[in-house]
């Protein structure tokens, strides 16, 4: 054995060093950590292209819509004015797993990014139950290609305005356009195309027998004929209610939409569903990727494949990524998913390898404390949990103490917050439970269902938890969008009810800002 030489010595990268480093990383990832990944496709892009990718929700291809332009315009300013840096990388849940690396990155950053995205995220995408069950990595790019083509065809045929009308409305309902429980069928381009053809044919048939003789002149206006009313009544009676997936409901039941409009609603719904697992696994996904890159970079250093300088640079970037400002810090903007995920996973490793001698870990985690097989435990967690259940299961008292977590109770109408739990014996479980809940999509996003329908009236019900109401202005606008898709001359009402089914009184509430926009997996 000759002396080991570092993989690279300068911060400049080239394709050769990239490849060599990738191989070294892959060796650690597969042999040591035993990660199971999709084949990787690493794409080198420029900063402009990174900005482009940002605004089409991180996907390499996306249909055209002005809202993406709006996000682009905003990101562009933030970036140009130096308020925000760009992510070092974007990774796409697809097979092969595509990750974007920026050309401006130093070689150490490229190595970090490869370990982080091409192995960490990649392993998570391929193995996590949510992704396996809800998304189809093989089909997504084909599907988006289809969607893009379909929508641009529609724009040519029906005009950009008509298409935007549908897209605007469908986007507004995106959060309520996912199935939360049953498992949807996987996307397959072939099936989509066949189904679409069938739908258009069927619609043509339907149009000829129902629409044609009820509507003189055709088009989208209905005469309120008794035949039509009866027909729709029968149809409505067969709809199973309540329905929580508003887009699905519209796609299937709207008496007004034309086939191409239904197809667009479906596309938006499919995209929403594709991102649904990502929303629920931010902490885990980032934690997994960060843990993996940290482990791999250290392993490379131990093998003397990284220079001291590279290692120092890496540590700098790593700790920036993990920065978690305190609640009273000016930079505080919520809990950093990278920091929390990484801390929890490192903590799991500690519990497995060197549990607390006083027995606290044994008491809290009898199954894993001191078992030694931290790789197995982590892989099991990556596979089977989402943020909410992961925190509920694995947030340890030790970490709660380290992070000085505390709970705040914020009750409407009370002039002060109340500290409800701190890092002590009485508080651990409470903190764990409350924090887990904050990552439960079902809890964060309004639960709105169609509860009653008729051709001309639709009742939507918002199931409010703890009397948390909807922000009113955007709510009205969103309901309007629902109406647009359902049937412009219909009557749509939205009622908020609490756990006891009592109606919540509305009050003048200023909106909360844009809330949680979908974020790229960094």
């Amino acid at each position, binding site marked *: 054995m000759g002396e080991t030489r570092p993989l690279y010595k300068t911060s400049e990268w080239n394709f050769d060093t990239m490849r060599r480093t990738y191989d070294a990383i892959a060796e650690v990832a597969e042999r040591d950590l035993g990660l199971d990944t999709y084949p990787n496709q690493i794409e080198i892009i420029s900063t402009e292209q990174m900005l482009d990718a940002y605004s089409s929700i991180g996907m390499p291809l996306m249909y055209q819509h002005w809202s993406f332009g709006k996000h682009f315009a905003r990101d562009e300013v933030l970036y140009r004015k130096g308020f925000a840096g760009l992510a070092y990388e974007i990774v796409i849940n697809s097979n092969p797993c595509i990750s974007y690396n920026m050309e401006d990155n130093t070689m150490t950053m490229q190595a970090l990014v490869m370990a982080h995205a091409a192995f960490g995220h990649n392993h998570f995408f391929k193995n996590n139950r949510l992704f396996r069950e809800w998304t189809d990595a093989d089909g997504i790019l084909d599907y988006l290609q289809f969607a893009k083509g379909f929508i641009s065809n529609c724009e040519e045929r029906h005009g950009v305005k008509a298409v935007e009308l549908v897209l605007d409305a469908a986007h507004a309902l995106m959060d309520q356009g996912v199935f939360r429980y049953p498992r949807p069928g996987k996307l397959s381009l072939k099936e989509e195309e066949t189904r679409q053809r069938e739908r258009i044919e069927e619609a043509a048939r339907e149009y000829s027998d129902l629409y044609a003789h009820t509507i003189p002149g055709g088009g989208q206006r209905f005469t309120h004929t008794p035949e039509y009313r009866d027909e729709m009544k029968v149809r409505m009676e067969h709809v199973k209610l309540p329905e929580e997936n508003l887009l699905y409901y519209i796609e299937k039941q709207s008496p007004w939409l034309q086939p191409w409009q239904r197809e667009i609603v479906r596309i938006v719904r499919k995209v929403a569903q594709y991102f649904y697992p990502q929303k629920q696994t931010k902490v885990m996904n980032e934690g997994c990727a960060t843990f993996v890159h940290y482990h791999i970079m250290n392993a490379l250093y131990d093998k003397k494949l990284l220079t001291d300088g590279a290692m120092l640079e890496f540590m700098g970037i790593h700790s920036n990524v993990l920065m978690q400002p305190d609640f009273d810090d000016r930079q505080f903007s919520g809990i950093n998913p990278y920091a929390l995920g990484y801390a929890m996973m490192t903590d799991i490793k500690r519990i497995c390898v060197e549990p607390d001698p006083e027995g606290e870990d044994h008491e809290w985690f009898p199954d894993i404390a001191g078992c030694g097989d931290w790789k197995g435990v982590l892989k099991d967690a990556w596979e089977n949990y989402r943020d909410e259940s992961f925190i509920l299961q694995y947030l340890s008292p030790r970490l709660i103490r380290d992070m000085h977590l505390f709970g*705040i109770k914020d009750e*409407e109408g009370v002039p*002060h917050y109340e500290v409800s739990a701190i890092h002590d014996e009485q508080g651990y479980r409470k903190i764990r439970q409350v924090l887990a809940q904050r990552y439960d999509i079902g809890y964060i996003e309004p639960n709105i269902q169609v509860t009653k329908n008729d051709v001309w009236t639709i009742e939507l019900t*918002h199931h409010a938890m703890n009397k948390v109401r909807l922000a009113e202005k955007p709510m009205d*606008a969103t309901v309007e969008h629902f109406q647009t898709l359902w049937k412009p001359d219909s009557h749509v009402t939205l009622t908020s009810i609490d756990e006891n089914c009592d109606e919540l009184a509305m009050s003048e509430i200023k909106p909360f800002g844009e809330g949680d926009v979908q974020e790229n997996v960094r």
Partner: protein
Amino acid sequence: MSMTIVDRRLNPKGKSLRNKQRFVHRAREALHESIRRDNGSDKKSDGNKDTIFVPQGKKMVRPKSSKKTAEPRFFHASGTGSVERIYPGNKEFGVGDYIPKPNGGRAGTRGKKASDSGDGEDDFQFILTREDFLDIFFEDLALPDLVKTGLKQIVKHKVERAGLSSSGTAVNLNLLRTMRNSYARRIALHRPRSEEVEELLARVFLIERKTDQTAKERRELSELLERIEHLRGRQRLIPYIDPTDLRYNNFERKPVPNIQAVMFCLMDVSGSMAQYEKELAKSFFMILHLFLERYYKKIDVVFVCHTHEGWEVEEEEFFYGRKTGGTIASTGLKEVHKIIKERFPADSWNIYVAQASDGDNSSGDSDTCIKLLNESILPLCQYYAYVEILDVREMEAFENEENGAELWCAYRGLRADWPNFAMKRIASHSHISPVFRELFQKEEAYG
């Protein structure tokens, strides 16, 4: 594990451009308002060179939120109901401690994310290109009366390509076309190729070199020579390039209207004009300049200052120089007239004059001004804008257009006789943009 690296850097950039254009298009209405508002009210008077109200490169715009660009969703209103949250970094709190809410617990106004505008979303800035910006800013404005006087033109000639011709000078020879013609002709007339002749010649040499030629070879030799002679004869008859093959690039001289304009910025810099008033005047001139720039490829700007005498200055001095003295407005006008006569003959230049003044003038001089304008300047001008800069208090006092300072009163009479004369008053930055718009409103240009 298989891995591919793809270099995408050469892929097209600006994938988002179309989306951004769609967004800008949607936001146009909201932009209109904010651009005009911003430019009306922004304080640009820090005496810096960059205070030009439209930056040379790009412009940050903060669009007002509008329904057209909102992306509403259902979301929970902050501060409603009863919520528990977890925060990191506890230092001193114990269970049961109270922390007062910043606003006494009224719902909805608290929290980092609550935006000041109240409409939440859309409270962000984005970059417009200079072109986009000016398009919007100058939309529905036009130069007054362009049709009537027409764009004064001197005819210049521009050389343009005009196909091919069969005659011309050697420099314009179109080799490609010529060779193509020649080739076609050679094929059509069966001109022997040189290779063919050379082949035969080679054979001739081969035979001639032999010392012991057979009878057969000698016969062949004479046949060959005959054949070669024949071919060469044909080659001479059918030239490689014939004069009929020649094609020349043809150029034609086309008359082009030469649209050029000159703008005179005439400003009173006497003691009565304070820094603030000068700033207002400059802002106005800047807008005018930008506006004219969009219509004319070539625009000359002449800066003229006057106190009790008028003189031409450089841009730098015009905007930043300081001078004191009395006020004799006619000196400035005289200077303008002199320059027009010397350098900008009215039949080949579109002439614009913008005069800014606080309205002071030494008594008796106003009549001279009127005379100058009536007789010498206004007949030559495309447009003459007089802007009077007032104190805010004065503005109130002079609500009625009939009252005013010396110059204002004098100039008032001109309006009836000269449709290309306009006068307005401004007292603050917020007036500039509306006044400018009024001066250049498309329909009402001349009432």
